[in-house]
């Protein structure tokens, strides 16, 4: 084999430099900008598939490690590496960005090059978040990512975009800065910012609890968990379609990733102590937000609430492990919960992204997101209706789609902890079907509601391509999830083993 390719660095810097190139090309050459952006995102996606093919599934150790001293005075390093948790998320990121570039193809009319560049730069930063093994490097990417997102919502968003984007920025900034303080505290104890070394650090229980709370503020806002979820519906509704897709598919996953990478391994005893609290928050998200989703009039808002509810499943899966371990003493069920949560995150990335794209398709034609402005879309857009049907079903957790796998695993594992937790969690199957299919029925079925709907054109080949790619992803992970489990199993097993060992001195 030739000299080792710095794959992770390429995944971070290729889209960022590509984005700068796109900016440089400017708005005058529209087609150049489009094909350049598509080319960059396609190359990045293809590079990220190398992560999958070259990934060694027999170990939990970090792979593709890159290490260069960055700020030597404080031992901050440009330290990258991936394991079974980050590889699927990176591939999800590159895949979604490609779709977003395609989705913005004809829709964005003003400042096109800046739009494309913002998404490409975001892609690089998000890959950086998932690949960073140095706490400060992680924070660096984590915060830097807010700036392009802030601009995306603010420039290309809906009527209340300014309110939504400032709320988004301040909310997430508020959460993250306390994480920074926690990192600094950990540094003063461990004298290192290396995440893997921080995992081994022995910390007293009180300190662990404070660290856990600081992390919780950062990650709960991102997930988002009830009650710090209020920025999400606003941001989603006002963001342009591409922004909503990235928000739902990837930004939310960063919160979940943070729990797996930081909260659980660095503060396992505090995680145990706050276990019931986290389960309660997750259940509230699942049930209460599920009901809230039921009454929404705006399609994007409905999907936004559905996202919160589904992400509650992911956090439930991450924190149910301690309860299972306490009840049964076996690790199998707990690992299943972690894997279920992870599966749920990936699957939700595809499904919510797909649903936002579907809403985007209708919005581009009618310029309304209100459910009441639609009805009988199936008569004019039969192909589109069929696609959306599949995604609606996947969102409801239909077996055979990716939505089913994660939910089933989490419910199954939480049953080992307590019947009632499983019962509450399972309401998502009912509620999820209710709000998704009811919306689907009102929008797609019935008689043609008004002139706008009557004039609708069915999706063109570009839109078909986007949705077809997502269909493949949703069905692939639904029917054959094995590769996914193969990748993450050793990591998850090791993670659970790690977090059940007390670190209190």
């Amino acid at each position, binding site marked *: 084999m030739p000299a080792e390719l710095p794959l992770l660095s390429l995944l971070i810097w290729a889209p960022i430099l590509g984005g700068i190139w796109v900016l440089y090309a400017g708005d005058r050459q529209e087609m150049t900008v489009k094909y350049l952006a598509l080319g960059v995102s396609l190359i990045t996606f293809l590079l990220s598939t190398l992560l999958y093919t070259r990934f060694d599934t027999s170990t939990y150790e970090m792979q593709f490690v890159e290490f260069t001293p*960055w*700020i*030597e*005075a*404080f031992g901050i390093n440009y330290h990258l590496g991936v394991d079974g948790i980050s590889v699927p998320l990176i591939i999800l990121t590159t895949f979604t960005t490609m779709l977003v570039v395609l989705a913005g193809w004809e829709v964005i009319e003003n400042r096109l090059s800046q739009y494309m560049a913002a998404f490409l730069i975001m892609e690089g930063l998000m890959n950086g978040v998932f690949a960073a093994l140095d706490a*400060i490097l992680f*924070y*660096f*990417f984590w*915060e*830097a990512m*807010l*700036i392009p997102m*802030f*601009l995306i919502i*603010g*420039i290309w968003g809906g009527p209340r*975009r*300014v309110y939504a*984007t*400032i709320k988004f*920025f*301040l909310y997430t*900034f*508020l959460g993250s*800065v*306390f994480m*920074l*303080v926690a990192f*600094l*505290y950990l*540094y*003063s104890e461990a004298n290192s910012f290396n995440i893997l070394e921080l995992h081994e650090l022995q910390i007293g229980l009180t300190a662990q609890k404070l660290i856990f709370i600081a992390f919780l503020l950062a990650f709960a806002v991102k997930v988002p968990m009830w009650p710090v979820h209020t920025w999400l519906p606003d941001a989603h509704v006002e963001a342009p379609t591409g922004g909503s897709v990235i928000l739902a598919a990837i930004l939310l996953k960063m919160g979940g990733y943070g729990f797996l990478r930081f909260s659980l391994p660095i503060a396992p005893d505090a995680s145990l102590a706050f276990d019931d609290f986290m389960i309660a928050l997750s259940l509230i998200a699942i049930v209460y937000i599920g009901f809230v989703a039921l009454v929404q009039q705006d399609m994007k808002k409905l999907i936004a609430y559905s996202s919160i509810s589904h992400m509650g499943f992911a956090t439930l899966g991450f924190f149910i492990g301690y309860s299972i371990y306490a009840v049964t003493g076996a690790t199998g069920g707990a690992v299943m919960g972690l894997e279920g949560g992870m599966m749920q995150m990936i699957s939700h990335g595809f499904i919510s992204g797909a649903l936002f794209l579907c809403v985007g398709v209708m919005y581009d034609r009618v310029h309304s997101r209100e459910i009441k402005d639609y009805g009988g879309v199936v008569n004019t857009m039969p192909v589109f209706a069929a696609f959306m049907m599949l995604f609606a079903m996947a969102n409801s957790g239909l077996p055979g789609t990716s939505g089913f796998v994660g939910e089933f695993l989490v419910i199954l594992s939480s049953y080992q902890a307590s019947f009632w937790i499983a019962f509450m969690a399972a309401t998502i199957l009912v509620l999820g079907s209710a709000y998704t299919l009811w919306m689907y029925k009102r929008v797609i079925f019935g008689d043609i509601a008004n002139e706008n709907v009557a004039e609708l054109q069915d999706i063109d080949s570009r839109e078909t391509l986007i949705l077809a790619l997502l269909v493949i992803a949703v069905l692939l992970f639904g029917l054959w999830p094995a590769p996914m489990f193969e990748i993450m199993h050793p990591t998850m097993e090791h993670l659970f083993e790690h977090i059940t060992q007390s670190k209190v001195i």
Partner: protein
Amino acid sequence: MILQSDIVLLLPEITLLSLACAVLIIDTFSRDPLRNVTYLLGQLSLLITAILVIYLYPDETTYAFGNSFVSDSMSTVLKAVICVITFVVFLYSHDYLKKHEWMKGEYFVLGLFAVLGMMVMVSAYSLLIVYLGLELLSLSLYAMVAMHRESQSASEAAMKYFVLGSMASGMLLYGISILYGVTGSLELDALAIQISEHSEHGILLVFGLVFVIVGIAFKLGAVPFHMWIPDVYQGAPTSVTLFISSAPKIAAFAMAIRLLVNGMHPLLGDWQEILIILSVLSMATGNIIAISQSNIKRMLAYSTIAHIGFLLLGLLSGSQEGFAAAMFYVITYALMSTGAFGIVILLSRRGFESDNLDDIKGLAERNPWFAFIMLILMFSLTGAPPFLGFWAKWFVLKEVVASGYVWLAAVAVLFAIIGAYYYIRIVKLMYFDKPETMTAIKASQQMRFALSINGLALLIIGLMPGLLMSLCITALVQ
């Protein structure tokens, strides 16, 4: 007795003084209404001084004139930074003065004298020399603020600045006299030794310390001695505001290090407590009041106050790394402040200051490049990565946590979030709103170039902050 080595040590100051006098005389005889000669000579003097400063980088700390003047790595770095920042300030100011047809040679001459004052402050190692440098700086600044005779607001600002400034100088002098009365020494090292030996006069020493801190806090602009900042920043011509907000902060930081650390280290516990209060008050007042401002200059004035609060955090952590963090912060801040006022100058035209928040609306459409530069500046002031402002906050917070004040770090980040609001509001105005006018931006090529470099520097040093950090650490950690 004056030794030859003493003269060599003072060579940059002596050179600057001679050059400034020469520029003053040449300016008097210059008939050029554009004052190009004065401007170019002024810039040349700064460059020569900077080169001399760097050339005379001392291998070890050396003293001159009976230990009342010091040359160490901190003084060298800070003097060089002051010269470079002032160079940029002159460049921006030249554009401003030309644009507003208000070209005055005195601006540059006074600026050079102010730089001389700052250099003396940075190197001062005796209470009186500190005071000497401070007064040279302050008097030049008072005159600069008042230079625009026809402007009512400038005269008012100058009056306020002068009255309050003299009072603060008086306080400082009073504090110095008490310290001298107790210890009998003006030289800072001897002062520190005397203080630790005269612990029986604790109350009296702390009494003197409080007055000294008042003086320092006034010059830095920490709450509750911040009243002059908003009025002077808003009232003075933008070119003067630009100058006041940049290099003198570095000199004030040096004064704080000389007096508190070199001279009164035995009283660390006492001044630490005072600085905690000043710092929290500054961050709170600055950030909260800045939200309600509609004038950019006034908003940046309150933002300065908030940043001074952060700077004090570095000082009060009491470790050498903490002082290095504060030094890193003040240099970063001077860079950001220069850039931000540079943008205000860039947008102004003849007879129009362009200092209202509404004037910046839709800048992204009028001029995408400088909107982007302003975006960098604003996010850097917020403290968001990947910009340099993030590392400044990070470094200070790290030292605060390391010295055990985790709660103080939490308070600081809380106020940083409040601060984020008014910075991103500027980004909002530039990027999300429609412009009120499409008037083309008038500025010279050099101004555009320098401002671009200024903004991009924050990004580039932000990606590679290691060098500047090591420089600050070597300057302050022995």
